[in-house]
C-alpha cells in the first residue's frame, strides 16, 4: 500500500531520474528463479548489465513502482489489476511470457479438505462450498470460475473468501473453509500435513488455452531510454529461463538450480522441490495472446475490468526477439 501511495506521489511530482543498474522487483518465489540463476551464474555480468533485487510482497504491490520506473523489471501475475493498469495508461509493457500451467507442471491447484475426498468427486459437488482465494480477480480466482463453468455452473455457485495462503491451512483444519485455491509449495505442504488433497490442477481441465499465470513486465520509461540495456538484460534473462526449464524437466542443471532457489526464495526445504509440481515456463518466452484475452474477457464480464486493454498493444517483443536471435530457439514446447 505504501508503495502504491509512493508511486502516486511520484506520479504527482513527475518521477525521479533513474540510475544505471537495473532494479528487479522480485517476490522470492520459484517463478523468479531465472533472475536468480542469471545473477548467480553471471549471465547479467556477461551481458554487461548490473542488476539489483528489490523484494516485494506481491506482484500487485510491484506494479505501481514499475510504472514510475522505480523498478525496471517485475514478474507480474496476470490479473484484473494488470489489465486495469494498462487501461489506465500506465507505462508498462509485457516483454515475454513467464509461467503457465501445463500437465505435470501445474502449480495452480484447488485443494479440498481431506474429509471431503469421498463426497466431492466432480466440480458439480462444489456447489455451495466455501473456497478461499488469496486475491479477488486473480489467476486463481479465474481458474476457480473456469472450473465451475466446465461443469455448467458459475463462480456464483461457490462462496469465496479472501485469505492469504498460509491462513488457509488453519482455515481448513477448523472447517471454516472447505478448500482453497493455492500455488505450490502450499498444495504439497498441505497434503503432507494431512490437511487437504489436491482436487484439481489447472492443467487438468484448462488445455486450450492453458492457464496463463504470469508475464515479465518492463517499465516503458526504461525501455524508451535504454533499449540496448533492455536487450542485453533480456538475453541474460532468457539464458536463466533455459536453465530453469532444464531443471524443471529433471535435467543435469536441476541440483544447481534447486540450490540457487533455496538461497534466494522463501522455500528453503530442498526435499520439497522434488515433491511438488514446478510451474511451466516456455523456453522461448512466447506470449499466449489467447490466454491473456480469455482472462481479460472474464474479468470484464464480471465487472473487475471497466475498459478492456488492447492485448497486442500491451506487449513489446523487441527484446525477446533480440534474445531469441542471439540464442536461437529452443526445441520443444
Amino acid at each position, binding site marked *: 500500500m505504501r508503495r502504491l501511495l509512493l508511486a502516486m506521489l511520484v506520479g504527482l511530482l513527475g518521477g525521479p531520474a533513474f540510475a544505471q543498474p537495473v532494479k528487479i522487483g522480485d517476490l522470492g518465489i520459484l517463478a523468479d528463479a531465472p533472475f536468480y540463476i542469471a545473477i548467480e551464474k553471471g549471465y547479467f555480468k556477461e551481458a554487461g548489465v548490473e542488476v539489483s533485487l528489490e523484494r516485494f510482497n506481491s506482484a500487485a504491490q510491484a506494479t*505501481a513502482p514499475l510504472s514510475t520506473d522505480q523498478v525496471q523489471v517485475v514478474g507480474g501475475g496476470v490479473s484484473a489489476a494488470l489489465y486495469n493498469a494498462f487501461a489506465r495508461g500506465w507505462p508498462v509493457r509485457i516483454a515475454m511470457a513467464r509461467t503457465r500451467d501445463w500437465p505435470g507442471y501445474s502449480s495452480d491447484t484447488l485443494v479440498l479438505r481431506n474429509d471431503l475426498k469421498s463426497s466431492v468427486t466432480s466440480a458439480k459437488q462444489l456447489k455451495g462450498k466455501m473456497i478461499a482465494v488469496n486475491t479477488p480477480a486473480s489467476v486463481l480466482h479465474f481458474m476457480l470460475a473456469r472450473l465451475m463453468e466446465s461443469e455448467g455452473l458459475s463462480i456464483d455457485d461457490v462462496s469465496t473468501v*479472501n485469505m492469504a495462503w498460509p491462513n488457509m491451512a488453519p482455515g481448513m483444519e477448523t472447517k*471454516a473453509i472447505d478448500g482453497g485455491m493455492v500455488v505450490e509449495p502450499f498444495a504439497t505442504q498441505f497434503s503432507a500435513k494431512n490437511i487437504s488433497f489436491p482436487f484439481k490442477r489447472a492443467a487438468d481441465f484448462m488445455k486450450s488455452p492453458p492457464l496463463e499465470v504470469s508475464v515479465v513486465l518492463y517499465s516503458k520509461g526504461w525501455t524508451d531510454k535504454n533499449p540496448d540495456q533492455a536487450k542485453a538484460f533480456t538475453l541474460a534473462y532468457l539464458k536463466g529461463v533455459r536453465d530453469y526449464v532444464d531443471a524443471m524437466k529433471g535435467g543435469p542443471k536441476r541440483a544447481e538450480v534447486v540450490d540457487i532457489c533455496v538461497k534466494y526464495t522463501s522455500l528453503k526445504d530442498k526435499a520439497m522441490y522434488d515433491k511438488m509440481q514446478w510451474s511451466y515456463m516456455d523456453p522461448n518466452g512466447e506470449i499466449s495472446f489467447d490466454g491473456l484475452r480469455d482472462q481479460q474477457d472474464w474479468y470484464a464480464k464480471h465487472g473487475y475490468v471497466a475498459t478492456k486493454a488492447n492485448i497486442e498493444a500491451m506487449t513489446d517483443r523487441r527484446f525477446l526477439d533480440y534474445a531469441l536471435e542471439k540464442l536461437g530457439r529452443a526445441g520443444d514446447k
Partner: protein
Amino acid sequence: MRKVTQERALAILSPIAVLVLWQLASDIGLVDQRYVPSPVAIAKAGWSLAATGELEKHVWASLRRLAVGFVLGAVPGILLGIVMGLSRWVRAALDPLVAALYPIPKVAILPLLMLVFGLGDASKVAVVAMSVLFLTIINTTVGVVQLEKIYFDVARNYGTPWYKLFARVILPGALPTIFAGLRISLGVSLVVLVSAEFVAANSGIGYLIWSSWQTLVVENMFVGIIVVTILGVLTTFLLHECERLLVPWRQ
C-alpha cells in the same frame, strides 16, 4: 456573530477550494490521473457504487462491526476499569496482564481469531472489541484513581450508601476521563476494523479499499478512503454529542 459565521464559512469553503484545485490540477495534467484520480472520477465511481447498492452493503457491514465491537469492548472495559481503579489489589493483579496484552497488534492475531470466531463478522467484532477493551480499561482506571479523595470523604460524611456511591460519585467523577478513553478508542477501532477488513473479509469498507487496490480500480479505493473519513467524522460527532449530554458540567 459575524466572526463565527466567517469561521463557519471558511470551514466549508476550504475543503471545497481544495477539491476544485485538485480537479483543475487533474484536468491540466499537473496531477497524473493515471495514479491519482480526479475528484470528479472519484465521485462518479462513488455514484455507481451507491447505485448498485454495493457501497451501502460495505458501509453497513463496517458500521455494524464497529458498533457491536465498540460496545462489547467499552462496557466491560469501563466496569473493569472502575474495579481496578477502586481496588489496589485488583489493580496490582491485573495491571501486568493489561500491560502485556495491550501492545499486541490485534490485526496480527487476526488469523488466530479467525480460527476461534470463524470467517464472518465475529472475528472483526472481536478485534475491535479487544482494542477498545484495553484502551477503556486503562483510561477508566486512571479516571477512577485520579478521583480526588475528598469526594469519598464528602460522600461518606453526607451519608452515601455504598450502592449510591457508584452511580452518584465514582461514575460521574470518572466520566470525563472515561470519555477521553472512548474518544481514543473510537479512532483506534476504526483503524483496526479497516485493517482487519483488509486481511479477512469479503465485505466492509476495508475490503472495498483493499480489493479495489488489488484490482487497481483506484477510483473505488479513493471512494473507500473518503467513506472511512466520513465515518470517522460522523462517529466522532456522535460520541461528542453523547458526551455533551452525559458530561454537561465540562462544557
